[in-house]
Protein backbone atom coordinates (compact mmCIF):
# COMPACT_ATOMS: atom_id res chain seq x y z
CA UNK A 1 0.00 0.00 0.00
CA UNK A 2 2.76 2.34 1.08
CA UNK A 3 4.76 1.44 -2.04
CA UNK A 4 1.78 2.18 -4.29
CA UNK A 5 1.40 5.64 -2.77
CA UNK A 6 5.10 6.38 -3.33
CA UNK A 7 4.91 5.15 -6.93
CA UNK A 8 1.79 7.25 -7.53
CA UNK A 9 3.47 10.31 -6.04
CA UNK A 10 6.55 9.82 -8.25
CA UNK A 11 4.34 9.46 -11.32
CA UNK A 12 2.36 12.60 -10.50
CA UNK A 13 5.49 14.63 -9.81
CA UNK A 14 7.10 13.45 -13.03
CA UNK A 15 4.00 14.29 -15.04
CA UNK A 16 3.77 17.77 -13.47
CA UNK A 17 7.43 18.52 -14.15
CA UNK A 18 7.07 17.21 -17.70
CA UNK A 19 3.98 19.31 -18.33
CA UNK A 20 5.28 22.56 -16.88
CA UNK A 21 8.63 22.21 -18.63
CA UNK A 22 6.76 21.88 -21.90
CA UNK A 23 4.56 24.93 -21.37
CA UNK A 24 4.11 27.16 -24.39
CA UNK A 25 7.08 29.44 -24.76
CA UNK A 26 6.42 33.12 -24.25
CA UNK A 27 9.03 33.99 -26.83
CA UNK A 28 6.80 33.35 -29.83
CA UNK A 29 6.83 35.54 -32.88
CA UNK A 30 3.35 36.79 -32.11
CA UNK A 31 3.92 40.35 -30.94
CA UNK A 32 3.19 40.97 -27.29
CA UNK A 33 0.81 43.78 -26.43
CA UNK A 34 2.15 46.80 -24.61
CA UNK A 35 1.70 46.08 -20.90
CA UNK A 36 1.18 49.68 -19.74
CA UNK A 37 -2.35 51.08 -19.96
CA UNK A 38 -5.29 49.46 -21.74
CA UNK A 39 -4.37 46.96 -24.41
CA UNK A 40 -4.92 47.74 -28.06
CA UNK A 41 -7.67 45.14 -28.01
CA UNK A 42 -9.47 47.11 -25.29
CA UNK A 43 -8.98 50.33 -27.24
CA UNK A 44 -10.64 48.90 -30.35
CA UNK A 45 -13.68 47.71 -28.41
CA UNK A 46 -12.50 45.07 -25.97
CA UNK A 47 -14.64 42.28 -24.63
CA UNK A 48 -18.05 43.99 -24.73
CA UNK A 49 -20.42 41.56 -26.41
CA UNK A 50 -22.38 42.82 -29.42
CA UNK A 51 -24.45 41.09 -32.06
CA UNK A 52 -22.49 39.95 -35.09
CA UNK A 53 -23.83 41.81 -38.13
CA UNK A 54 -22.70 39.12 -40.57
CA UNK A 55 -23.86 36.11 -38.56
CA UNK A 56 -27.42 36.68 -37.44
CA UNK A 57 -28.20 35.47 -33.95
CA UNK A 58 -24.60 35.24 -32.76
CA UNK A 59 -22.67 37.48 -30.42
CA UNK A 60 -19.11 38.66 -30.84
CA UNK A 61 -16.68 40.75 -28.81
CA UNK A 62 -16.57 44.35 -30.07
CA UNK A 63 -12.76 44.16 -30.24
CA UNK A 64 -12.84 41.18 -32.57
CA UNK A 65 -15.61 42.69 -34.67
CA UNK A 66 -13.53 45.85 -35.18
CA UNK A 67 -10.39 43.92 -36.06
CA UNK A 68 -12.28 41.57 -38.40
CA UNK A 69 -13.75 44.54 -40.20
CA UNK A 70 -10.30 46.11 -40.60
CA UNK A 71 -8.85 42.79 -41.78
CA UNK A 72 -11.60 42.26 -44.37
CA UNK A 73 -11.23 45.82 -45.68
CA UNK A 74 -7.46 45.34 -45.81
CA UNK A 75 -7.83 42.09 -47.75
CA UNK A 76 -9.72 44.01 -50.43
CA UNK A 77 -7.00 46.65 -50.56
CA UNK A 78 -4.23 44.05 -50.71
CA UNK A 79 -6.07 42.03 -53.37
CA UNK A 80 -6.20 45.16 -55.53
CA UNK A 81 -2.52 45.94 -55.00
CA UNK A 82 -0.51 45.18 -58.14
CA UNK A 83 2.76 45.13 -56.19
CA UNK A 84 1.54 42.38 -53.85
CA UNK A 85 -0.22 40.37 -56.56
CA UNK A 86 2.46 37.63 -56.78
CA UNK A 87 1.60 36.57 -53.25
CA UNK A 88 -2.08 36.10 -54.03
CA UNK A 89 -2.17 34.11 -57.24
CA UNK A 90 -3.02 30.81 -55.52
CA UNK A 91 -5.82 32.50 -53.65
CA UNK A 92 -7.24 34.04 -56.83
CA UNK A 93 -6.90 30.74 -58.69
CA UNK A 94 -8.93 29.07 -55.94
CA UNK A 95 -11.52 31.82 -55.98
CA UNK A 96 -11.75 31.54 -59.76
CA UNK A 97 -12.60 27.88 -59.25
CA UNK A 98 -15.30 28.86 -56.71
CA UNK A 99 -13.20 27.57 -53.82
CA UNK A 100 -13.62 30.22 -51.12
CA UNK A 101 -11.93 28.30 -48.31
CA UNK A 102 -8.66 30.18 -48.75
CA UNK A 103 -10.38 33.55 -48.45
CA UNK A 104 -12.25 32.47 -45.32
CA UNK A 105 -9.04 31.08 -43.82
CA UNK A 106 -7.12 34.24 -44.64
CA UNK A 107 -9.75 36.40 -42.96
CA UNK A 108 -10.06 34.13 -39.93
CA UNK A 109 -6.34 33.51 -39.41
CA UNK A 110 -5.41 37.14 -39.86
CA UNK A 111 -8.18 38.23 -37.48
CA UNK A 112 -7.08 35.62 -34.92
CA UNK A 113 -3.51 36.88 -35.26
CA UNK A 114 -4.56 40.49 -34.74
CA UNK A 115 -6.72 39.55 -31.72
CA UNK A 116 -3.82 37.72 -30.09
CA UNK A 117 -1.31 40.41 -30.97
CA UNK A 118 -3.45 43.25 -29.61
CA UNK A 119 -4.06 41.51 -26.31
CA UNK A 120 -7.28 39.48 -26.53
CA UNK A 121 -7.43 36.85 -23.81
CA UNK A 122 -10.37 34.98 -25.33
CA UNK A 123 -9.10 31.48 -26.12
CA UNK A 124 -11.62 31.13 -28.94
CA UNK A 125 -9.91 34.00 -30.77
CA UNK A 126 -6.37 32.69 -30.25
CA UNK A 127 -3.99 32.46 -33.19
CA UNK A 128 -3.10 28.82 -33.84
CA UNK A 129 -1.26 29.17 -37.11
CA UNK A 130 2.38 28.95 -37.99
CA UNK A 131 4.95 31.39 -36.66
CA UNK A 132 5.40 34.44 -38.87
CA UNK A 133 8.87 33.22 -39.79
CA UNK A 134 7.66 29.80 -41.00
CA UNK A 135 4.51 31.19 -42.63
CA UNK A 136 6.65 33.41 -44.86
CA UNK A 137 9.34 30.88 -45.68
CA UNK A 138 8.75 28.75 -48.80
CA UNK A 139 10.65 25.90 -47.14
CA UNK A 140 7.98 25.59 -44.47
CA UNK A 141 4.91 26.84 -46.30
CA UNK A 142 4.14 25.58 -49.78
CA UNK A 143 1.64 28.40 -50.43
CA UNK A 144 4.30 31.07 -50.62
CA UNK A 145 6.60 30.96 -53.61
CA UNK A 146 9.16 33.50 -52.56
CA UNK A 147 10.45 35.27 -49.54
CA UNK A 148 9.07 38.71 -48.73
CA UNK A 149 11.27 41.78 -49.18
CA UNK A 150 11.18 44.99 -47.16
CA UNK A 151 9.44 47.01 -49.89
CA UNK A 152 6.55 44.53 -50.11
CA UNK A 153 6.24 44.41 -46.33
CA UNK A 154 6.06 48.20 -46.16
CA UNK A 155 3.42 48.19 -48.90
CA UNK A 156 1.45 45.60 -46.92
CA UNK A 157 1.54 47.79 -43.80
CA UNK A 158 0.42 50.75 -45.90
CA UNK A 159 -2.50 48.67 -47.20
CA UNK A 160 -3.52 47.85 -43.63
CA UNK A 161 -3.50 51.60 -42.99
CA UNK A 162 -5.88 52.04 -45.94
CA UNK A 163 -8.06 49.26 -44.49
CA UNK A 164 -8.12 51.13 -41.20
CA UNK A 165 -9.10 54.36 -42.98
CA UNK A 166 -11.98 52.54 -44.67
CA UNK A 167 -13.21 51.82 -41.15
CA UNK A 168 -13.05 55.45 -40.12
CA UNK A 169 -9.67 55.41 -38.37
CA UNK A 170 -6.91 57.56 -39.82
CA UNK A 171 -3.88 59.61 -38.81
CA UNK A 172 -6.02 62.72 -38.51
CA UNK A 173 -8.75 61.50 -36.18
CA UNK A 174 -6.80 58.88 -34.21
CA UNK A 175 -3.08 59.14 -34.89
CA UNK A 176 -2.17 57.32 -31.68
CA UNK A 177 -4.17 54.21 -32.55
CA UNK A 178 -2.84 54.14 -36.12
CA UNK A 179 0.73 54.56 -34.89
CA UNK A 180 0.33 51.85 -32.25
CA UNK A 181 -1.15 49.37 -34.74
CA UNK A 182 1.57 50.11 -37.28
CA UNK A 183 4.20 49.73 -34.55
CA UNK A 184 2.66 46.38 -33.66
CA UNK A 185 2.86 45.19 -37.27
CA UNK A 186 6.44 46.45 -37.50
CA UNK A 187 7.42 44.07 -34.68
CA UNK A 188 6.80 41.19 -37.10
CA UNK A 189 9.00 42.69 -39.83
CA UNK A 190 12.19 40.91 -38.78
CA UNK A 191 10.44 37.53 -39.06
CA UNK A 192 8.50 38.24 -42.25
CA UNK A 193 11.16 39.99 -44.32
CA UNK A 194 13.55 37.24 -45.31
CA UNK A 195 15.26 38.54 -48.43
Amino acid at each position, binding site marked *: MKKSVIVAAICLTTVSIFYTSCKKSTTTTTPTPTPAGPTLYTRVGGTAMVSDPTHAGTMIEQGRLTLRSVVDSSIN*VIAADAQLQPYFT*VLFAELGAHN*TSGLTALSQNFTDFMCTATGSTNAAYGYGGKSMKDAHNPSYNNRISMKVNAADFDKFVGDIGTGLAKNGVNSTNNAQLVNDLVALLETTKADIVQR
Partner: protein
Amino acid sequence: MEKRKIIKIALISLSVVFVLFAVLIVHIAMVTKYKAVEPDGRQLSRIDFTEKVDSTEANKIKNFVGHLDGVESTYFNVKDGIFVYTYALSKQNSLGVYNKLMSYGKYKAHRYMVDPSEATKGCPAMGGNKSFMYSLVMYVGKLIN
Protein backbone atom coordinates in the same frame (compact mmCIF):
# COMPACT_ATOMS: atom_id res chain seq x y z
CA MET B 1 10.69 -13.28 -6.46
CA GLU B 2 13.46 -11.37 -8.18
CA LYS B 3 11.77 -11.94 -11.56
CA ARG B 4 8.43 -10.64 -10.25
CA LYS B 5 10.13 -7.50 -8.97
CA ILE B 6 11.73 -6.83 -12.36
CA ILE B 7 8.39 -7.31 -14.12
CA LYS B 8 6.73 -4.96 -11.64
CA ILE B 9 9.35 -2.25 -12.21
CA ALA B 10 9.09 -2.72 -15.96
CA LEU B 11 5.30 -2.37 -15.81
CA ILE B 12 5.51 0.78 -13.69
CA SER B 13 8.10 2.27 -16.05
CA LEU B 14 5.96 1.47 -19.06
CA SER B 15 2.94 3.03 -17.36
CA VAL B 16 4.89 6.19 -16.63
CA VAL B 17 6.12 6.36 -20.24
CA PHE B 18 2.57 5.82 -21.46
CA VAL B 19 1.19 8.56 -19.21
CA LEU B 20 3.94 10.95 -20.30
CA PHE B 21 3.24 10.19 -23.95
CA ALA B 22 -0.48 10.76 -23.44
CA VAL B 23 0.25 14.07 -21.71
CA LEU B 24 2.52 15.06 -24.61
CA ILE B 25 -0.20 14.32 -27.17
CA VAL B 26 -2.83 16.28 -25.21
CA HIS B 27 -0.35 19.11 -24.71
CA ILE B 28 0.43 19.30 -28.45
CA ALA B 29 -3.28 19.37 -29.17
CA MET B 30 -3.85 22.14 -26.62
CA VAL B 31 -1.06 24.44 -27.76
CA THR B 32 -1.73 24.00 -31.47
CA LYS B 33 -5.52 24.18 -31.17
CA TYR B 34 -6.44 23.11 -34.70
CA LYS B 35 -9.31 25.19 -35.97
CA ALA B 36 -11.45 23.96 -38.76
CA VAL B 37 -12.24 26.73 -41.21
CA GLU B 38 -15.60 26.46 -42.89
CA PRO B 39 -16.08 28.57 -46.01
CA ASP B 40 -18.71 31.21 -45.32
CA GLY B 41 -19.91 31.55 -48.90
CA ARG B 42 -18.21 34.91 -49.40
CA GLN B 43 -16.44 35.28 -52.72
CA LEU B 44 -13.92 37.89 -53.86
CA SER B 45 -13.46 38.87 -57.50
CA ARG B 46 -11.35 41.36 -59.37
CA ILE B 47 -11.78 43.38 -62.55
CA ASP B 48 -8.77 44.98 -64.23
CA PHE B 49 -9.34 48.19 -66.19
CA THR B 50 -7.15 48.75 -69.24
CA GLU B 51 -8.34 52.33 -69.67
CA LYS B 52 -7.59 55.18 -67.28
CA VAL B 53 -10.33 55.54 -64.66
CA ASP B 54 -10.32 58.66 -62.50
CA SER B 55 -11.57 58.76 -58.92
CA THR B 56 -14.97 60.18 -59.91
CA GLU B 57 -15.60 57.34 -62.35
CA ALA B 58 -14.20 54.84 -59.82
CA ASN B 59 -16.76 56.03 -57.27
CA LYS B 60 -19.52 55.57 -59.84
CA ILE B 61 -18.35 52.01 -60.49
CA LYS B 62 -18.11 51.25 -56.77
CA ASN B 63 -21.56 52.68 -56.22
CA PHE B 64 -23.09 50.69 -59.09
CA VAL B 65 -21.54 47.36 -58.13
CA GLY B 66 -21.98 48.03 -54.41
CA HIS B 67 -25.73 48.26 -54.88
CA LEU B 68 -26.07 44.95 -56.71
CA ASP B 69 -27.86 42.34 -54.65
CA GLY B 70 -25.44 40.26 -52.57
CA VAL B 71 -22.40 42.53 -53.04
CA GLU B 72 -20.89 43.19 -49.62
CA SER B 73 -17.87 45.41 -50.18
CA THR B 74 -15.93 47.15 -52.94
CA TYR B 75 -12.50 48.69 -53.36
CA PHE B 76 -11.02 50.50 -56.36
CA ASN B 77 -7.27 50.96 -56.69
CA VAL B 78 -7.35 53.96 -59.02
CA LYS B 79 -3.59 54.06 -59.50
CA ASP B 80 -3.42 50.52 -60.91
CA GLY B 81 -6.96 50.39 -62.34
CA ILE B 82 -7.86 47.35 -60.24
CA PHE B 83 -11.37 46.90 -58.86
CA VAL B 84 -12.09 44.30 -56.16
CA TYR B 85 -15.43 43.35 -54.67
CA THR B 86 -16.79 40.69 -52.34
CA TYR B 87 -20.22 39.13 -52.57
CA ALA B 88 -22.37 36.25 -51.42
CA LEU B 89 -21.90 33.30 -53.75
CA SER B 90 -25.54 32.38 -53.33
CA LYS B 91 -26.66 35.71 -54.83
CA GLN B 92 -24.08 36.76 -57.43
CA ASN B 93 -21.33 35.42 -59.65
CA SER B 94 -18.33 37.21 -61.10
CA LEU B 95 -19.41 36.87 -64.74
CA GLY B 96 -22.86 38.27 -63.90
CA VAL B 97 -21.39 41.26 -62.08
CA TYR B 98 -18.90 41.87 -64.90
CA ASN B 99 -21.62 41.75 -67.56
CA LYS B 100 -23.83 44.13 -65.60
CA LEU B 101 -20.94 46.57 -65.15
CA MET B 102 -20.08 46.43 -68.85
CA SER B 103 -23.69 47.11 -69.76
CA TYR B 104 -23.63 50.06 -67.38
CA GLY B 105 -20.44 51.72 -68.60
CA LYS B 106 -18.94 49.96 -71.66
CA TYR B 107 -15.57 50.05 -69.96
CA LYS B 108 -12.36 48.62 -71.32
CA ALA B 109 -11.84 46.04 -68.65
CA HIS B 110 -11.58 42.31 -68.12
CA ARG B 111 -12.16 39.86 -65.33
CA TYR B 112 -8.89 38.93 -63.66
CA MET B 113 -8.13 35.25 -64.21
CA VAL B 114 -4.98 33.69 -62.86
CA ASP B 115 -2.56 32.48 -65.49
CA PRO B 116 -1.74 28.80 -64.83
CA SER B 117 1.97 29.64 -64.75
CA GLU B 118 1.30 32.16 -61.99
CA ALA B 119 -0.65 29.68 -59.90
CA THR B 120 2.53 28.25 -58.45
CA LYS B 121 2.99 31.48 -56.57
CA GLY B 122 1.05 31.89 -53.39
CA CYS B 123 0.15 33.55 -50.16
CA PRO B 124 0.57 32.12 -46.68
CA ALA B 125 -3.13 32.36 -46.03
CA MET B 126 -3.75 28.89 -44.76
CA GLY B 127 -1.36 26.52 -46.37
CA GLY B 128 -0.09 23.13 -45.54
CA ASN B 129 3.40 22.69 -44.26
CA LYS B 130 5.24 19.65 -45.47
CA SER B 131 7.59 19.30 -42.52
CA PHE B 132 7.31 16.14 -40.42
CA MET B 133 6.62 18.02 -37.19
CA TYR B 134 3.92 20.16 -38.80
CA SER B 135 2.23 17.09 -40.28
CA LEU B 136 2.40 15.28 -36.93
CA VAL B 137 1.02 18.24 -35.03
CA MET B 138 -1.83 18.73 -37.52
CA TYR B 139 -2.62 14.99 -37.50
CA VAL B 140 -2.73 14.82 -33.72
CA GLY B 141 -4.73 18.04 -33.57
CA LYS B 142 -7.30 16.64 -35.98
CA LEU B 143 -7.54 13.38 -34.03
CA ILE B 144 -8.18 15.07 -30.74
CA ASN B 145 -10.33 17.98 -31.81
